[in-house]
């Protein structure tokens, strides 16, 4: 206590305040960006959502020649294997198109008599789909075909078609409850199946059925197998410039919504990293400020420390008041920073609520833990430095 009374002289409140403010700023930025990154992690990595994993759907350009069927929009086996051999391609698959006719019909709560339409089906291997539904199964016995439609189709229906026709708007859930009758015909046969929409995809702009059903149905009702006219590709890195060059030079088109989403995702990631970097730099500068300030303080109390050591006080004992000071400041900084982070997190969660779902359970111990790590590291550097500087005076 007396030691503290003696050694606290010459403490520059302004410098300490500066340290507290700067470290608080730096730490809060670092923790907030960590938390933000953490919150967006499901969005970055999940198979569903705005920033789904990066797939490209590639097709040939439709030109007059192709309309006149002089040249084809189908990919030949040769072209497929050429694409597959490109270094940027991780894996790829062709779309399998149905070579039979599809007619779907339904009755909406008896109010409208029958709502029916011609449809088409396509399929891709399940591993490319961003759907994880247990309904996504077909087997020959139970006469049921699951269907996936693009989310945009539902939007089209709800905001374009339904209002203009006086039909009810449907949520994803209700449309999933709707039973459809599917009539397949071709190859001199026809059959009726039960069906439901089991999922929606952002990735593929087509009406999808399971691959194994498609293979079976093409044999039953098909009129000859066709080469795929669209391929789905998972590249190693969606922002690889070679990718764009290759497709452009072969006159292929990329359905580039996913590509741009991928770019946005990686841009956001980079942005978070930059902000975090700035936070780290501010924290380090604040640490530097504190080290200088401590140095100055100890130099100003040089005579006192010398006298104390002549009285037989150990370096540890003399360093302790300063070390406590720093530790107490750091703990205060940590606590305030944690409060600030959770406050700002509340703010951004609220503002993103409409576009991105942020899981509240995700309020990770993670960032508290990181805060503790950083503050422990800062304190350790300070404690070591104080000890060194006090020891220097004894020499």
């Amino acid at each position, binding site marked *: 206590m007396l030691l503290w009374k003696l050694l606290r002289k010459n403490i520059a409140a302004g410098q300490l305040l500066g340290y507290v403010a700067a470290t608080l700023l730096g730490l809060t930025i670092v923790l907030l960006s960590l938390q933000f990154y953490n919150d967006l992690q499901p969005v970055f990595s999940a198979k569903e959502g705005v920033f789904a994993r990066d797939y490209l759907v590639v097709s040939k350009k439709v030109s007059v020649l192709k309309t006149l069927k002089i040249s084809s929009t189908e990919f030949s086996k040769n072209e497929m294997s050429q694409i597959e051999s490109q270094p940027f391609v991780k894996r790829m698959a062709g779309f399998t198109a149905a070579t039979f006719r599809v007619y779907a019909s339904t009755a909406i709560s008896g109010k409208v008599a029958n709502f029916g339409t011609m449809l088409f089906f396509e399929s891709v291997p399940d591993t490319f789909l961003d759907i994880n539904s247990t309904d996504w199964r077909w087997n020959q016995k139970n006469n049921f075909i699951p269907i996936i439609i693009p989310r945009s189709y539902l939007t089209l229906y709800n905001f374009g078609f339904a209002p203009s026709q006086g039909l009810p708007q449907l949520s994803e859930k209700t449309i999933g409850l709707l039973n459809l009758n599917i009539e397949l015909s071709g190859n001199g046969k026809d059959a009726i199946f039960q069906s439901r929409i089991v999922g929606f995809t952002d990735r593929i702009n087509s009406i999808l059925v399971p691959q194994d059903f498609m293979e079976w149905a093409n044999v039953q009702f098909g009129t000859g197998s066709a080469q795929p006219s669209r391929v789905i590709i998972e590249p190693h890195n969606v922002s690889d410039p070679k990718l764009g060059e290759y497709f452009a030079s072969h006159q292929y088109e990329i359905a580039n919504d996913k590509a741009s989403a991928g770019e946005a995702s990686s841009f956001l990631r980079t942005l978070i990293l930059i902000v975090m970097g700035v936070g780290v730099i501010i924290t380090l500068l604040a640490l530097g400020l504190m080290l200088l300030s401590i140095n100055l303080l100890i130099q100003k109390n040089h005579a006192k420390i010398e006298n104390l050591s002549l009285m*037989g006080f150990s370096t540890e004992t003399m360093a302790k008041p300063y070390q406590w000071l720093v530790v107490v400041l750091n703990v205060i900084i940590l606590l305030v920073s944690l409060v600030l982070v959770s406050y700002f997190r509340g703010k951004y969660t609220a503002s993103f609520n409409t576009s991105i779902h942020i899981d509240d359970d995700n309020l990770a111990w993670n960032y508290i833990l990181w805060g503790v790590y950083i503050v422990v590291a800062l304190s350790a550097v300070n404690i070591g430095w104080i000890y060194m500087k006090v020891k220097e005076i004894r020499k």
Partner: protein
Amino acid sequence: MFDDYAVVCRLFLHYSFLIIHYSLYKVQTIEIHDIVPDPIAEVASKTSEVWFKDHSFTRGKHYLISAESGTGKSSFFDFLYGRRHDYQGSITFDGASLHSFKVRDWNKIRQHNISLVFQGFRLFPELTVWENLQLKNHQTGYLSDQKMMQMLETLGIPEKRDIPLRFISYGQQQRVALIRAMCQPFDFLLLDEPFSHLDEVNQRIICNLVSEELKERGASLMLCSLGDPYFFEYDEKLNM
């Protein structure tokens, strides 16, 4: 070979003793062997009874070291107190060379074995008289508050107890410095020109107090002074 072994054993015993029984450890003899401060090695008097001589100081005895200015008496105390190490020759505490002592050892020695009143006192002007004493006494808890108060009363400055040190006179500070030196156990009390600013009445009182304390503790006095102005009895007088 056997000599080396013996030395190692003795050092080992010595240090294990230091570690285990530090607070009980007493310095019994201080021996100097052919020492002289580096800065005055060339000019130091060959007739000095301290420099270039072998001498041993024993716990319990009183020594007066008379010295003219500039002959290195403060340096001598600085060596014994571990503040400076720039001397030739060797000084030992019970056979252990001071050069082998670490910072940690000196901290212990300064808390338990050797007490020194500096010429400049080295008190803390921003603390009160009482706080200055407490700061030292807290290290070992050697004196009771009562005893410290009694000393202040004996030396005639009890009313200065709670006054910041910077507001009291030089002579009064000198008395505080002396009481502070008593606020710890010691085997050797080193006084460097201690009572220069006190009148004869006060000198008598303070000498009595110190003598009593020394007797009680069985400790040695080593006093450096220009002449022999004080009221102590000495076992040996050395001319520096």
